[in-house]
């Protein structure tokens, strides 16, 4: 259901079925709603069987990259004698994204169950859930659920009498967007500054504490119990457009829609239906100006692109952006797009870990140029300079924070050029100003 709103007929409630239902937070409540059946089932399966089932479902990483989950798990070594770790990325902090927090605070046992099933698949005994420091309420709910799961034998040295050891540790971050990047997350968990690591080695080879590690997003893991109990074929059948995009996706919609909230759709739903039907469209008297569909790191879409877009990995890519995290920022015609692009650039400048020059300097310089343009002191060459900078910030650094800063700038200038020209002195851009 579209928390905090009642379920819309165009939604497909799977992960979100119990959002808003506080009784689902307890072990007993979760069990009464069918919870922990999937874990009992997984305890009877081999790691290969679990991985094959998840591969067949078509589940892809819901944190942003969309990498096939079963395939990722299959990269983990088998008989290497080392401890393996599962990390759950609950560092949700991509602007526009607020979907994982609903899983964390309404269905924490779904996440715990997903973690330990994944741990079984990758031959890990310990799962770490890294939750952003700002999520105080979700942390409290999640920790209570973990404590209860231990008390009920769903976690611990002998899970449900199976003889298998499965531990879950909740670890709080302390304020750093970059810790949502998987290698930065591992560094932070180890007690270090959250600087991303150079890959290779990839986490499956040398990850947390130097051991083979898999990192999955909250939403990805929460989908796993459903896949085991209802079957891979059922999950793969949830598909409205492209067979490479299966299942449901939580989309958190914010900004200028009538009903912002977290909604669950079958992948492939037309984006127009999501914005206009499920979210109620624009406020009275307003029209759509732009959409950032997958968290602030993806290119901005025009209304024409939105109209043509199927909301899945391939569909959004074909319409000039990326599905990303599913954090959708909707902007109407009251929006000063140049100002908002500057705010996003400022965000990335603030959050840059500063170890790569192109990112540390590029994000700050981009912000200063945009601030200058907004003050009316822009130069004729500024837009070309911004694009040149963006080129030097894309694909040049250890992680993609720098690329993420460039995305709204480049797409903003290319798709909304008149907005930028309007800030430049008239003599500079008479043909493009549109005023």
């Amino acid at each position, binding site marked *: 259901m579209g928390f905090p709103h009642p379920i819309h007929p165009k939604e497909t409630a799977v992960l979100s079925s119990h959002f808003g239902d506080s009784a689902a937070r307890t072990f007993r409540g979760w069990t009464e709603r069918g919870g922990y059946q999937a874990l009992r089932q997984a305890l009877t399966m081999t790691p290969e069987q679990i991985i094959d089932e998840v591969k067949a479902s078509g589940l892809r990483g819901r944190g942003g990259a969309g990498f096939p989950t079963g395939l990722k798990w299959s990269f983990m070594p088998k008989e290497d004698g080392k401890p393996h770790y599962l990390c759950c990325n609950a560092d949700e902090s991509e*602007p526009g994204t607020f979907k994982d927090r609903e899983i964390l605070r309404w269905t924490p046992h779904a996440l715990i169950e997903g973690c330990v099933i994944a741990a079984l698949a990758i031959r890990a005994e310990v799962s770490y859930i890294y939750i952003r420091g*700002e999520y*105080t309420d979700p942390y409290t709910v999640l920790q209570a659920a973990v404590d209860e799961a231990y008390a009920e034998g769903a976690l611990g040295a002998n899970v449900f009498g199976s003889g298998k050891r499965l531990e879950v540790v909740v*670890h709080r*971050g302390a304020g750093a967007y970059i810790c949502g990047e998987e290698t930065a997350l591992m560094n*932070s*968990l180890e007690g270090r500054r959250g600087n991303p690591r150079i890959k290779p080695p990839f986490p499956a080879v040398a990850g947390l504490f130097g051991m083979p590690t898999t990192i999955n997003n909250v939403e990805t893991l929460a989908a796993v119990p459903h896949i085991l109990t209802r079957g891979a074929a059922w999950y793969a059948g949830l598909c409205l457009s492209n067979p490479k995009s299966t299942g449901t996706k939580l989309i958190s919609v*914010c900004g200028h829609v009538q009903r912002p909230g977290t909604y669950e759709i079958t992948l492939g739903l037309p984006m127009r239906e999501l914005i206009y039907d499920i979210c109620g469209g624009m406020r009275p008297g307003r029209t759509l100006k732009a959409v950032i569909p997958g968290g*602030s790191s993806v290119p901005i879409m025009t209304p024409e692109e939105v109209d043509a877009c199927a909301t899945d990995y391939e569909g959004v890519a074909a319409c000039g952006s990326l599905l990303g995290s599913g954090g959708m920022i909707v902007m109407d015609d009251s929006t000063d797009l140049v100002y908002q692009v500057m*705010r996003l650039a400022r965000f990335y400048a603030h959050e840059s870990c500063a170890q790569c020059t192109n990112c540390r300097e590029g994000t700050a310089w981009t912000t200063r140029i945009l601030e200058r343009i907004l003050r009316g002191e822009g130069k004729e060459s500024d837009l070309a300079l911004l694009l040149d900078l963006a080129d030097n910030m894309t694909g040049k650094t250890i992680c993609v924070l720098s690329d993420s800063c460039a995305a709204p700038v480049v797409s903003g200038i290319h798709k909304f050029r008149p907005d930028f020209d309007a800030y430049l002195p008239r003599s500079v851009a008479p043909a493009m100003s549109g005023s």
Partner: protein
Amino acid sequence: MTPHVESSYHPVFVGAVRDRLEALQGRYPTRMALLLPALWMVQEERGWVSIDAMREVAELLGLTPAYVQGVVTFYTMYHIHPVGRHFIQACTTSPCNICGAEDVVRALLEQTGCGELGATSADGRFTVIEVECLGACGFPTPMLINNDFVESVSPDGVPALLARYP
């Protein structure tokens, strides 16, 4: 920013607090992994993380004070200065920004008497800062007041909200 130095320092990790920290060791294969949890405990006990506290944590975990300071200053949520009794972090990132977050911050600065971001009101009651994305973008403007997560704050709602934090 130069961190504050406390005039007389009493260790944080004694008695029950020390026991709570050591109880966490079983969860991690290294001592260093206790660093973020230990710093959280310092902040819970003292309200901020002083240079002396960093030294204490360093010694406990077998790290150098410089290393600990490097970690503390990487993260935005550890305070390296004393802050007001109620610490307010209001989100002004784009999704909230387009829904009027800057007006909310202006109202907060005026009505708390803080005047400017990062400053503490003369009565020591409030400190207000802007924070980047709190992950509650559908409910502008969200803010953290101490550990309380508050959503959908409008400029008009600021006086009643502040009244809850004497």
